[in-house]
C-alpha cells in the first residue's frame, strides 16, 4: 500500500507513527512532534493547490464518532481524511437518547465490528478516548475528551506558531481564560512546553485547576500582568453556562477583567499574535476588533493548519498501519 500513485505529492514521506493510538500529547516525544510538524508543512502547500488529493489512505475507512457537537474539528478531520483518500463516515450519537456511557462502549464496539481503520472520537468525559482504545481493534484518535486533552488542536497550534514565528522554542505563550474546563489548555501546556515555549496560564482562580503552578508553567490571576511581554496570547472559550456555577459573576464583568481588548493587548510584546481555538464568544473573551485584525489574529490560520495537522496525524498513523 505504500507505492505512490501519480498526482500531487506530499513533500515528505509520512513516518510510521510510534503508537497505535493518538490519545494524549503526553504520549509524544519531541522528535515525533517535529516529524509531524514537518509533514504537516507539506500538507499546507498541498492544500493550497487546486489538486489536493493523495492516496496515502486509499482503501482505509475513517469514522468520526462525535458524542459532542463540533463543526470545526469534525469537518477538519473529515477533509483531512478525504484529501488523503480515505472513506470517511461521520457519526454523531446523541448522549441524551441512551444512558451516556452505554452509548460510548456499545457504539464503539458496534462500529469496530464494521472494520474501520481509524476512529476519531470526541466525548464529554475525560479519559473516554483512552477507555475506548482498550475496547476496539482499530486505531483511535482523541478529538477531545472532557477536560482532559485535545492533542490535534495542540499540534495545529504548534504548527501555526512555528509558521508565524519561525520557531516555537523561546516563545512566551499566555493561555488565558477558563483553563479549568479546557482540554485545549491542557494539551497546549504539554506540547508547547515540550517544544521549549514558556507557557503562562492566566485566569481567575475559580477557573484555574488546582496545582496548575506545578505543571511547569507560570500562573497569573490578572490578565494585564499575565500577557505583559507575551509573544502569543491564546484566548480560551468561556462556556456561558459557567455564570450559573458561581465561577464568575457576569459576562460584562468577565469581559472587563478577562476579555482581550486593544488596551490590555498593548502590554504584550510588539510582535504579539492572538489565537483562539474557536468558536469565539465575541465581546466575552475577545473583542471583535482584535479577532478580525489579520495583522494580529492567527485564528484563521489555526483553522487552515488544522486540516494539515490532522492530515499529518492520519498519514503517520496510516504509515504505521501499512507496516503492521
Amino acid at each position, binding site marked *: 500500500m505504500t507505492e505512490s500513485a501519480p498526482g500531487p505529492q506530499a513533500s515528505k514521506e509520512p513516518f510510521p507513527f510510534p503508537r497505535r493510538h493518538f490519545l494524549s500529547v503526553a504520549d509524544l516525544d519531541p522528535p515525533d512532534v517535529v516529524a509531524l510538524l514537518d509533514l504537516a508543512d507539506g500538507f499546507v502547500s498541498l492544500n493550497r493547490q487546486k489538486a489536493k488529493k493523495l492516496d496515502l489512505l486509499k482503501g482505509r475507512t475513517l469514522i468520526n464518532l462525535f458524542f459532542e457537537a463540533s463543526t470545526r474539528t469534525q469537518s477538519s478531520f473529515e477533509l483531512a481524511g478525504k484529501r488523503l483518500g480515505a472513506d470517511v463516515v461521520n457519526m454523531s450519537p446523541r448522549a441524551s437518547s441512551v444512558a*451516556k456511557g452505554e452509548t460510548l462502549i456499545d457504539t464503539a464496539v458496534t462500529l469496530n465490528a464494521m472494520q474501520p481503520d481509524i476512529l476519531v472520537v470526541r466525548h464529554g468525559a475525560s*479519559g473516554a478516548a483512552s477507555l475506548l482504545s482498550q475496547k476496539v481493534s482499530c486505531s483511535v484518535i482523541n478529538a477531545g475528551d472532557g477536560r482532559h486533552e485535545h492533542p490535534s488542536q495542540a499540534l495545529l497550534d504548534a504548527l501555526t506558531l512555528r509558521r508565524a514565528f519561525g520557531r516555537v522554542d523561546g516563545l512566551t505563550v499566555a493561555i488565558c481564560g477558563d483553563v479549568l474546563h479546557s482540554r485545549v489548555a491542557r494539551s497546549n501546556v504539554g506540547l508547547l512546553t515540550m517544544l521549549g515555549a514558556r507557557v503562562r496560564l492566566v485566569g481567575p482562580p475559580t477557573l484555574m*485547576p*488546582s496545582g*496548575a503552578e506545578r505543571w511547569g508553567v507560570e500562573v497569573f490571576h490578572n490578565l494585564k500582568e499575565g500577557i505583559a511581554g507575551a509573544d502569543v496570547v491564546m484566548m480560551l472559550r468561556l462556556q456561558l453556562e459557567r455564570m450559573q456555577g458561581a465561577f464568575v459573576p457576569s459576562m460584562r464583568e468577565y469581559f472587563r477583567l478577562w476579555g482581550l481588548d486593544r488596551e490590555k493587548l498593548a502590554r504584550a510584546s510588539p510582535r504579539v499574535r492572538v489565537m483562539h481555538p474557536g468558536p469565539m464568544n465575541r465581546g466575552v473573551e475577545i473583542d471583535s476588533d482584535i479577532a478580525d485584525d489579520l495583522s494580529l489574529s492567527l485564528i484563521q490560520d489555526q483553522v487552515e493548519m488544522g486540516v494539515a495537522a490532522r492530515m499529518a496525524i492520519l498519514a503517520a498513523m496510516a504509515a504505521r498501519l501499512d507496516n503492521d
Partner: protein
Amino acid sequence: MTAPTIAFINARLVDPASHYDGPGALITSQGLIAEVTHEVGFADLPPDVRLVDCNGAMLAPGLVDLRVKTGEPGNEPKETLKSACLAAAAGGVTSIVVQPDTLPVADDPSVIDFVMRRARDIGLVHVYPAGAATKGLEGKAMAEIGLMHDAGCVYVTDVDRPIVDSKVMRRLLAYAHGLDLMVAHRPVDPWLTEGAAATESEFAGRMGLPAAPAIAEQIMLERDLALAGLTGARLLVDQISCAPALETLARARAGGVNVLATCSINHLTFNELDIGDYRTFWKLDPPLRSEDDRQALIEAVASGLVDIIVSAHCPAPPEDKRLPFEEAAPGSVGLETLLPALLTLHHEGRIPLLDLIGKVTLAPAEAIGLPSGRLAVGAPADLVLCDLDAPRLINAEELASKSKNSAFDGRRLQGQVRLTLVDGRVVYEAS
C-alpha cells in the same frame, strides 16, 4: 446443622481482648469456644474431635465488617446476600453489617426482618442489617429507627449520602441516643463535592477530572462532632479518609465526644495515583486521597485514633464500571481481600499484628454489641485460621462476589485463609 468439636493445636493465637499474641491451642464445641490454652496442644482430647494442626498459622477471632453492600433486595445481579456471605467466609469475615441502600430501602422493620430471615436461611456468616437513618435515605424525615432497632438493626445510617439538614441530624442523634442506638454518618459537604470524581490535586487537574478538595470531609465532620457533643449520641464516623479530618477527630475526642471512627482498607492501601489511566476499579467514595493522607491514616490507625477498619465492600457490575471515569459507579469489592490487605501493614512492620486484628474483630464487635471478636471461653466460635506469610496474587475473576470490581485485582498480597468457622461450623476451608 450441629457444630462439630474441633481442636486447633500449634496455633499462633491472636486475641485482642486478652492482648495475647503467641503460641496456643483452642477447642470449639457446640458452637462456642470451649477451651483456650497458651500451650501448643492439649494433654487429652475428647473423643470424636477433629484435630487441626495449625503449624504456626494465625488463629484469630473471625472478622467483623461494619460496612458491606449487597444488591439484595432489589439489585441481585450485583450481589446477593448469599454471594456476599460466600465472599465473607472465604475472606475470614464471620459477621457483616449490610447497608440499607437496597431496593426497597431498609427504612422500615419489614426489610430488616427480610434481610435477617434470608441470612438465617443461607446459614453461612452472621448478617446484621443497618437501618436507614431517614426515610428513603433522603435526609428529610427520620425513619422508624426504634422499630428497626427492635427488629435487629445494629446501627442507622444514610450510607453514602450525608444528612445535610443540621436540624434533622440533630434530632436523629438525640432520638437515637434515647434508644442507645449508634448513628453512622459519612461526613461530606455535598455542595463542594457535587459532580466530583476525584480528590482535588495536581494529578486530578492534569487528568481533567472534576474534583473536590479533601476538606469537604472535614467541614461536615466538624458539624457532626459538634452535634454529637451537643446530644451525647454515639456517632460512628464512616470512612474517614484525609489528614484534615483526622485532626478534627482528634480534637473532638480530646474534648470527650462519644465517637468511633472507621476507615476503609482501600484508603490505607491506595492513593490517588492508583487511578492511573482512568481505571474505574479505583474510583471510590470517598475518592482516593493523596499519599500524605494515606500515611496520616496509617498513623491514625496505629495511634488508635481510628478505631475500626472496614472493607467498604461495594459490588458494581461491568455495566456500571466499564464507563468513562467520571460516569462510572464508585466502589470496590473487598470482603475477600480485607484480611490479606490488612496484613500488608503487619508485614511492612507499620502496625503490630495484634493491633491490626483488633481493628477488624474486637473493636467492631464491641461497637455493635456482639459477643464475638475474642478468643474467650464461652464466646461464639467465630474464628479464622490464616497462613500469614502465604503469597497470593489476587485475581478478581476468582473472587466469590458476583461483581468482580476489585481494586486489588492483580495485586500481590500475603495471607491465605485456611479455615473460617461461624458458630463452630466450618463455612470455608481452602482446598
